[in-house]
């Protein structure tokens, strides 16, 4: 391969790939006009075109076309001018319309309109912005003369497995791994000699900060200096890779990609609950070297996968990853809730696209992507996946305690425990007798007369006189008043009781769910244990035609979500009852979850059901969100119970649908037919369903009161059995712990989105069936209707044919180890991104990475190389040439000098001063508030100034109250994917190190520790110790002289040593890696 000397970019010629993306037709989805302003022409320059002899389409030509032509002549049909598209060769060489000249005549620049128009002095293309430079014109001219060959965009091409370049035997000493061959070949092509190895101390410092984000222990440095062998280096690498600090360092890199935050921002900065569990999950994943494919899969669809079990507590690890979706911002009172959701989804897809694929998917929200093969249809097809799941919590069961209890409860329930059957006729006899007797004194004789047990009848009479049975709420109240008290013959008594059962029937009602069929009307998705006990399927409706959260046990917790439906009537109705204590119903409109904190505009959509277990008709006024998509949640998050009878929509607030009609047993009462009324009551009570339409469990009060049986013995036995069964269940259930809640995705029904024309939901277009980006994946399976299809989405992202996933991550790892990726635009591998400096090396890394998806292996392979271990000082012979041919050091002749990242700086301050608390994981440390941190949502109290000594990634991430020190050193705001942080260099950073009280405090702590260390016998040894702790490298005699002189010039030794500590913190070497 020839690379010209004037081409200092180390770029190997990309294997020519003439296959164009065969997907052009889907880009042109028939959108018409757009008045949107084009991207300004001068804004886009993907690189300086090379003047080498060979023109490479991707390297030289595409950047010009992208920057200057595609806005009007690219993939986006809606803004295409004159029907000409230059992103496809067919479009460029054929006349845009019959009779016109083609833009390009391959092999003949002079006859090509393209060249003519860009060189037209009077009216040059592009019509706005700077004209093309002479070099750009020359490049295009040469490309056309050479035949105007196109190539697919490099990142869309399959990942190759290039063999490492061979290196002359005498230069083998420069090679440690295959990576070095690629790098060295690039250097040789421009005649650069790589620098020597860095000194052993610098190598260890670099490795320690890169792998665990902390300064190395001086004893480790000393040991390596004494024995800088390859084997020793390997041991160091393994030691750092095995350290828990590894996951903390690399986990934080990942958190940048997923805009990790613990609050929602906006007006009140409401919390994102349980966010930190995802942070710890990320740390564990890196420490366990969870294969990257599984890591991605769990974030997209961990709730749907065969669980990966946490070895420590037996919980489902996989589901925790799905928190990834929900670190977006959130607003509590959007007047346009559909727009609000579509903004949230745009952010979710932005993070998915940029984070996993290096693609700016969200650009296609309003128009086909200007530069990449991503259509609006692709965007809305992806959007459907997000529509089809819901933010929520997963319930976890550390130690499997709940699971074991559920098994015992299920076993217990399956044991025969139903009371003996009592014939309705027999029950009716007692009811009649008790009416006849009325008073205890007559019980005996009437019982004997009718062949009943006198003692049982006496109990009947006593019980019915108890206050509780007289209250209107008691299920037996109608019978107590009308039967026992014989009120049935009085119109005045009858009327108010019967009125309670008369309802106005709403003919307009649409019943969503009545629970009176063997299968429910809506599709329901359970989490936790309350609604299903043990299986994945929700419990079927009970025989009684309701759904209860305590079919096994009321202490079990869980949530049931409905499929998505459309609010096309004005009111949503529920018939529910419950005991409070976590029993709750909720209407979620367009995924709007903030009513948990503030229910403006969503008032009443989330209600506690504390009806003291009486039925209640709940009406939710949905008139503010007509036509919106919604789903329902039945929540039992406490020891209480929740029961739902029916759910319907209607245009009326007060009426009920015909399914909720009068109980049959009440009808005879209307006519005053006492015998028939009693018989119906008896029939209803002893019927196997044990329930009337109104859901009143008539039998239960009888059993509890010892009235269920043909005689007293049988009734006592029935009561005792029930009490015993209850006791057994309590023994199992009472010790149950609350489950652990984890922020997670919950599955919902499959929703396919309409395309929102130009991004506006008020202009819905055709439906975009859920699928992955068409130009990357072919032959995708149809998405399921009963679920989101996220497993298929993850499959497509991880498919071997998708060239992006592995390349993007391999590049990220390189970026973190060198401060710059092989592709510098780490989050954009599309048309506006940069070309890789070493394409073959990138593919080599990606290919290796894909074999086992091991991030540790990838890191291992890089840090074992010579290029990683290089000095930052060029050899004197090379220094001048380096400046001339590779001033940006893209070819890595020397190691780049890097500033430590924000977290590493603060962590180093803690570590060096001895204040570091090395506890891994756990809830965040409350934000320390300074007087400058003001505004709504400010926490009531401040956290400790030193964050309890915890590493920086454990400091609470409040969107509206970011840590000032970390912000000053470029920790990005958590709004979108940031794979490549700013590295700014501003006075505010100096002010932090100079005047921040924490820095002063830590300097003092450090000084005290040094002075108290009896092993340090004199000032010189103290100075030496501090120096090595701060900078790793050995101090010079002069440095020690300066420090000792500084200290001895003062009286107060403690103050002077604190000042030394503070000075060392402010010395530039402290925050730079060389």
């Amino acid at each position, binding site marked *: 391969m020839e690379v010209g000397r004037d081409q200092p970019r180390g770029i190997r010629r990309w294997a020519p790939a003439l296959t164009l993306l065969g997907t052009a037709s889907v880009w042109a989805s028939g959108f018409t006009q757009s008045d*949107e*302003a084009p*991207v300004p022409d001068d804004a886009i*320059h993907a*690189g300086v075109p090379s003047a080498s002899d060979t023109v490479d389409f991707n390297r030289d030509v595409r950047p010009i076309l992208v920057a200057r032509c595609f806005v009007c002549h690219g993939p986006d049909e809606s803004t295409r001018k004159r029907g000409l598209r230059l992103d496809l060769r067919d479009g460029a060489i054929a006349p845009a319309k019959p009779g016109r000249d083609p833009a390009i005549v391959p092999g003949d620049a002079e006859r090509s309109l393209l060249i003519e128009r860009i060189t037209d002095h009077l009216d040059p293309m592009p019509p706005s912005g700077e004209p093309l430079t002479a070099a750009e014109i020359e490049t295009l001219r040469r490309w056309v003369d050479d035949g105007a060959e196109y190539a697919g965009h490099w990142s869309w091409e399959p990942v190759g497995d290039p063999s490492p370049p061979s290196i002359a035997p005498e230069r083998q000493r420069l090679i440690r791994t295959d990576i070095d061959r690629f790098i060295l070949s690039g250097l040789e092509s421009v005649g650069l000699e790589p620098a020597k190895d860095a000194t052993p101390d610098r190598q260890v410092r670099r490795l320690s900060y890169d792998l665990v984000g902390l300064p190395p222990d001086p004893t480790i440095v000393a040991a390596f200096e004494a024995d800088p062998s390859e084997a020793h280096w390997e041991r160091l690498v393994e030691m750092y890779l095995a350290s828990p600090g590894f996951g903390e360092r690399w986990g934080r890199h990942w958190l940048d990609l997923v805009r990790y935050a613990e609050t929602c921002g*906006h*007006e009140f900065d409401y919390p994102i609950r349980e966010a930190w569990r995802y942070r710890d999950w990320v740390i564990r994943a890196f420490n366990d070297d969870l294969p990257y494919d599984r890591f991605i899969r769990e974030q997209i669809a961990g709730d749907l996968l065969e669980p990966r079990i946490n070895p420590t507590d037996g919980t489902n690890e996989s589901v925790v990853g799905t928190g990834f979706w929900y670190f977006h*911002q959130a*607003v509590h009172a959007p*007047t346009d809730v559909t727009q609000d959701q579509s*903004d949230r989804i745009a952010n979710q897809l932005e993070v998915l696209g*940029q984070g996993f694929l290096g693609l700016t998917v969200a*650009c296609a929200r309003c128009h086909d992507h200007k530069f990449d093969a991503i259509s609006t249809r692709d965007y809305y097809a992806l959007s459907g996946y997000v529509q089809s799941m819901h933010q929520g919590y997963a319930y976890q069961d550390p130690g499997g305690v709940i699971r074991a209890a559920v098994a015992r409860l299920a076993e217990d329930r399956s044991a025969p425990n139903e009371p003996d059957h009592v014939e309705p006729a027999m029950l009716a006899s007692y009811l009649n007798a008790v009416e006849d007797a009325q008073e205890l004194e007559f019980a005996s004789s009437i019982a004997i007369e009718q062949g009943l047990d006198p003692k049982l009848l006496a109990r009947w009479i006593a019980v019915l006189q108890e206050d509780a049975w007289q209250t209107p709420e008691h299920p037996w109240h109608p019978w107590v008043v009308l039967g026992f008290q014989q009120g049935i013959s009085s119109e005045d008594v009858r009327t108010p009781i019967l009125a309670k059962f008369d309802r106005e029937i709403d003919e307009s009602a649409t019943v969503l769910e009545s629970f009176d069929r063997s299968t429910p009307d809506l599709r329901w998705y359970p989490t936790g244990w309350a609604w299903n006990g043990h299986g994945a399927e929700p419990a079927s409706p009970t025989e009684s035609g309701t759904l209860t959260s305590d079919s096994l046990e009321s202490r079990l917790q869980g949530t049931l979500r409905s499929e998505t439906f459309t609010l096309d009537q004005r009111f949503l109705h529920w018939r529910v009852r419950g005991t409070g204590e976590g029993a709750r119903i909720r209407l979620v409109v367009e995924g709007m979850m903030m009513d948990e904190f503030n229910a403006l505009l969503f008032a009443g959509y989330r209600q506690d059901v504390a009806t003291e277990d009486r039925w209640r008709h709940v009406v939710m006024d949905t008139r*503010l969100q007509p036509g919106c998509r919604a789903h329902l949640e039945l929540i039992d998050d406490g020891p209480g119970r929740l029961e739902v009878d029916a759910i319907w929509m209607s245009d009326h607030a007060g009426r009920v649908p015909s399914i909720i009609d009068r109980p049959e047993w009440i009808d005879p009462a209307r006519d005053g037919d006492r015998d028939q009324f009693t018989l119906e009551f008896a029939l209803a009570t002893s019927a196997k369903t044990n329930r009337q339409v109104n859901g009143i469990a008539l039998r239960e009060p009888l059993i509890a009161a010892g009235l269920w049986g043909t005689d007293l013995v049988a009734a006592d036995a029935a009561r005792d059995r029930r009490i015993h069964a209850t006791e057994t269940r309590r023994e199992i259930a009472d010790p149950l712990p609350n489950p652990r809640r984890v922020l997670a995705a919950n599955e919902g029904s499959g929703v396919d989105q309409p395309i929102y024309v130009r991004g506006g939901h008020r202009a819905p277009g055709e439906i975009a069936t859920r699928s992955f980006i068409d130009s990357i994946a072919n032959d995708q399976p149809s998405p399921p209707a009963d679920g989101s299809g996220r497993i298929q989405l993850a499959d497509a992202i991880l498919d071997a044919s998708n060239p992006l996933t592995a390349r993007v991550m391999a590049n990220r790892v390189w970026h973190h180890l060198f*401060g710059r990726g092989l592709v510098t635009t780490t989050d*954009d591998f599309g048309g*506006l991104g940069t070309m890789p400096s070493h394409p073959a090396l990138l593919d080599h890394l990606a290919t290796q990475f894909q074999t086992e998806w091991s991030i540790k292996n990838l890191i291992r392979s890089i840090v074992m190389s010579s290029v990683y271990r290089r000095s*930052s000082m060029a050899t004197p012979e090379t220094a001048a040439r380096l400046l001339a041919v590779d001033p940006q050091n893209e070819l890595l002749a*020397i190691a780049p*000098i890097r*500033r430590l990242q924000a977290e590493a700086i603060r962590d180093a301050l803690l570590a060096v001063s001895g204040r570091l608390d090395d506890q891994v994981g756990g809830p965040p440390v409350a934000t320390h508030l300074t*007087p*400058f941190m*003001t*505004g*709504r949502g400010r926490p009531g109290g401040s956290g400790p100034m030193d964050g309890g000594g915890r590493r920086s990634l454990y400091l609470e991430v409040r*969107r509206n*109250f970011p840590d000032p020190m970390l*912000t*000053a050193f*470029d920790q990005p*705001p*958590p*709004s979108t994917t*940031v794979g490549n942080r*700013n*590295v*700014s*260099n501003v*006075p*505010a*950073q*100096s*002010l932090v190190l*100079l*005047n921040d009280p924490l820095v002063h405090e830590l300097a003092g702590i450090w000084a005290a520790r040094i002075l108290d260390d009896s092993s340090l016998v004199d000032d010189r040894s103290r100075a030496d110790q501090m120096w090595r702790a701060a*900078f790793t490298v050995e101090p010079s005699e002069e*440095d020690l002289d*300066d420090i000792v002189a500084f200290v001895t010039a003062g009286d107060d030794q403690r103050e002077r040593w604190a*000042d*030394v500590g*503070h*000075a060392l913190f*402010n*010395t*530039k*070497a402290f*925050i*730079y890696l*060389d």
Partner: protein
Amino acid sequence: MNTDPQTSHHCGRFIAGPTSRRQMLRQVAGGFGLAAFSALLHEDSVAAASPYRIARDGMLPEPHHAPKANSVIFLYMDGGPGQMDTFDPKPVLTDHHGQPFPMKKEVTQFDSNGNCLGTPWKFSPGGTCGTPVSDLFPHVREMADELLVVRSMTSPFNEHTNANYFLHTGLGLAGRPSMGAWATYGLGSENRNLPGFVVLDGGLTPPGGLQCFGNSFLPATNQGSVLRPAEEVLANVKPRDDVDRQRRKLTLVEALDRRNRTASNDQIESAIRNQELAFRMQFSVPEATSIDGESESTRRMYGLDAEYEQTKIFGRECLLARRLVERGVRFIECTCPQVGADRWDQHGKLKEGHENNARAVDQPIGALLKDLKQRGLLETTLVIWGAEFGRTPFSQGADGRDHNQYGFSMWLAGGGIAGGRTYGATDEYGYKAVDQPVEIHDLHATMLHLLGIDHERLTKRFGGRDMRLTDVHGKVMHDWIA
């Protein structure tokens, strides 16, 4: 190291015409290396790669066109004053007070909408132009000839934070650079010892918090520095050591730095320069924010002797804004003081609330305009007054107004604006902009234009796009410009 506070800051202002970067370098480079100064103003040190990137990724080599304004003062009226109560008189609304509101009402924040609510305040013409201003703003009314009152502002959001992020950053979500950040990113600061983008904290942080002033993906030097009216004005600017002790320490640092520059690296060089600068900022910031040298009459004019404590607070902000403009600060935002119930966000008790808020800001704003004018600074200082949205002409509850994004008023003065005029109109009830509606993007485009920046050409590549303050929107309102 120059440690003399008397000579280490710049009191002079470079008013004369557009200042090119090269000129500026020549003027202020004394004592510093060129590289260091360029790093200070444009310190995205990793980025500066190709000739293209320098133009894109930092301060413009020179403005896109001759600027009319050098600085911007944004008077942020937190919460949203009612347009019909301030600068957009609506006699029809007043006539229909208490009667049913005749137009279709859009969904509001509280969904508690009542009848027509006429304004409790009288309007009178101000200045020679006669632009009507309500009695809430008698001092501002006196300066009516300087004001361009825009009565047809619109916003896509009617929730505070969405609207506020949108007003400050051009996007309804947190995480984009603030307009002040864009201005300093494009033009840098004219004073190396002061931040280019300053927020004067009156006590009320805008809804959405400090993210309204963030730099986001722009270099950190462009973020808004919040100056508080307190002993410590700017975070970490107050030395925690006495000067001698600090200087002793820094001398040691300097010696160690000098010896331990293993490789000559631009980043490390500029970090060293920044430390020197930080040292000087400890003196320049307090100097700029001290009003000890201001005359008694100036203080009185700004209301620093007012009975109402909140007038004093905002008066001090406005006076400081003038001092910062004099010292070359590029963008200054003044936030409102706390007046009790709630900023301008009068969902109830309109009369009491608006009166308190106006009482706090009216006299200081009038004074600011007058003071800038008499010092010849108004010509080159763009003053913008306004909020994230306005208020409904129908009542909320008994005596409040809900948020209204469909039509509201802002005004601009100085900095090339043709004053003494109104622009655009709402309907006769003051509900929706019906004539010449203006978007916030247009305001941003015009603001940048006056600063000499083409809003379509000030971009920063981030996340695969060339980001702009105006996204893909915005048009320069040439009609507004003198």
